[in-house]
């Protein structure tokens, strides 16, 4: 299967759109009566450079011609681990206020290890042990030695 455009062209188009969005957003920057250059000047200068570079990138990618598209199944297999880890991290973040850093961290590490590694009963037990010991140790160091108040979470605060 050959795609109509190559991956770099798609990225270049995305970057140009990105420049457009940020350029439009730069008009929302408040204008002040003080200061020698406005707060919008430097970002627009950077956006101008980024726009020129993205255009060059677009021309370079178009000149290279279309490339072999990655099959949908191949894509999912290839990036499965990364997608799952980012997904688990997102869940960890969304539940942080409820589960807290200790409980949420242990669950995240256990889930991540189980997703990435083998899922035999022995391995699952090892993953649980690693999760409890590693996160427990880190939580203890930061809480008791470094005096950092980590999110406690609603679950532990109830107990």
């Amino acid at each position, binding site marked *: 299967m050959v795609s109509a455009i190559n991956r770099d062209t798609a*990225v270049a188009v995305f*970057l140009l759109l990105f420049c457009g969005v*940020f350029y439009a*957003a*730069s008009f929302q*920057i*408040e204008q*002040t009566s*003080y*200061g*020698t*250059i406005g*707060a*919008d000047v*430097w*970002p627009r200068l*950077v*956006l101008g*450079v*980024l726009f020129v*570079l*993205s255009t060059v*990138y677009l021309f*370079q990618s178009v000149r290279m011609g279309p490339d072999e598209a990655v099959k949908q199944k191949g894509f999912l297999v*290839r*990036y*499965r*681990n*990364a997608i799952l*880890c*980012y997904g688990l*991290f*997102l869940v*960890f*973040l969304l539940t*942080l*206020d409820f589960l807290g*850093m200790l409980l949420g*961290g242990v669950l*995240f*590490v256990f889930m*991540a*290890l189980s997703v*990435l*590694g*083998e899922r035999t009963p022995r391995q699952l037990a090892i993953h649980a042990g*690693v*999760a409890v010991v*590693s*996160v427990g140790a*880190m*939580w203890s160091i*930061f809480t008791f*030695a*470094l*005096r*950092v*108040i*980590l*999110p406690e979470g609603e679950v532990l605060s109830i107990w």
Partner: protein
Amino acid sequence: MLIENIIGAFGEVVQVKIMLLMALGVLSGLVAGAIPGFTITMAVVLTLPFTFGLSTIEGLATMIGVFVGGLSGGLMSGILTGIPGTPSSVATTFDGFPMARKGRPGLALGIGVWSSFMGGIFSAILLMTLAPQLARIGLEFGPWDYFSLVLFALTITASLAGENLTKGLIAGALGLLVATIGEDDINGVARFNFGTDALKQGFAFLPVLVGLFAFSQLMSDVQDSATARKPLMEKGAKAVRVEHLAAIKALAGDWVNLIRSSLIGVFTGILPAAGGSISNILAYDQAKKASKRPQEYGTGCPGGIIASESANNATAGGALITMMALGIPGDVVTAVMLGALLIHDVVPSPSFIGEQPVLAYSIFLAFFLSNFLMLGTQAIALRAFLLVTRIPMYMLAGVILAYCAIGVFALHNVTFDIWTLFWFGMIGYVMRQLGFPLAPMILGVVLGGIAEVNLSRAVAISGDLTLFVTRPWSLFFLIIAIFSIVFPWYQKHRGRKQWTLGFLPALCLALAPPLFMMGGVTRPIVGGLLVAVGAWLLVSRHRQGWKLTAPVEHAARLEET
């Protein structure tokens, strides 16, 4: 003055607690540096949160310990398994691994350790003597010069970071753009917050850096399930006894190589963007060219290990010279180190060494002493390394991800920093997959604020923009920025296209005018020398009929490694 400052710093650094923290830092750096897939940057980033609760000198001494340890750690896996732990020790494997396979792993490790030590000490001495001198030069810089210096740092990083210069420059520009998000330093106005309060303060530097670099690196490391589930090293490195005496004898017999390689390391480190990954190859190449028996290189020659290991450790001192004297980080590792300094309320600048000499020299002394600690803890690190290599990568990755979350939260005690880690972790991963180098982006994030502030100051002082090209230092940096942009093409076509023969003479001749403009005695003399070298290169190439000679490449060897 120098002695006074060193004595003052000695009292601050040589304390039981600080020495223990430094030793712990060195040990962590050694083990992390030895693990293939982990980099020195990763080691430094992951140690940083532990130093938040420490005093300035304690924290910085620990970080410097990790930095020095990380540089030396790569040699262990490189010599024992043939897989370099970090890119800084790629050339070490060329001769270290063959020597180990010939039955002398203890000697190879000994030469590596002692070369690292000597390179580190050499650069520490230069750091203490050269950094104040460079800072004095830095005091001459106006905002125009600083702005052009930042531009040069970004262009050279982009040109050296990857195969595609355009992608490197885009990454740098994206980094500059990220730095503009949130309240600006000059007018105090919120930018690009898209109506959200959380973005009004912008992104904290460290979560961005940990996300871009560490998070995305870990995701790349576990991308392939089969590889991620195997122990880090299947070849099973065995513990060996380091042959110290034989190693010292080997070094004494090749001291010219040691000094030359250390000098290459220091000067590579001083240049922005050129770190240990470049210096070890450069030094190896020069050692081979200068050797009376170049055919022995690659077969287990001590000279190859000496060149690579002394150069990569010396690079750290060189990089610290630029960072401490000018406040400009040269590469990703020093960018993280700069972040560590800023967290501990230390802001390196040309005036910093003069204003806070004890603190500055404490940092220099910590670097000096870390090399001794590296020598002392190598044997323990070797055992720890052998234990760690039995763990599969996915376990380390899962645990470190959780640790990253706790670490970045500890920075400001806000959950938004973990969100920053998450978003930039994804951005970094996608960029890696698309072939964008991350180093220019990270430097863009770090240097963006410096560039903007100096541009604003320059415009405030005078509306005349020609000052960017009429001030000698600014012109000097702009010229090398232009040449750094052309450098990837020069590197690609060197020995194949005739215009490349004119690159070096043109660089020499172009750099001479700003040096003449600087006045004084030394700089015009240096300018004159550059004109002479440029003219000599032109004449000699003309005499040879502009004949092309293919450069010696190490690409094949690097691919094998």
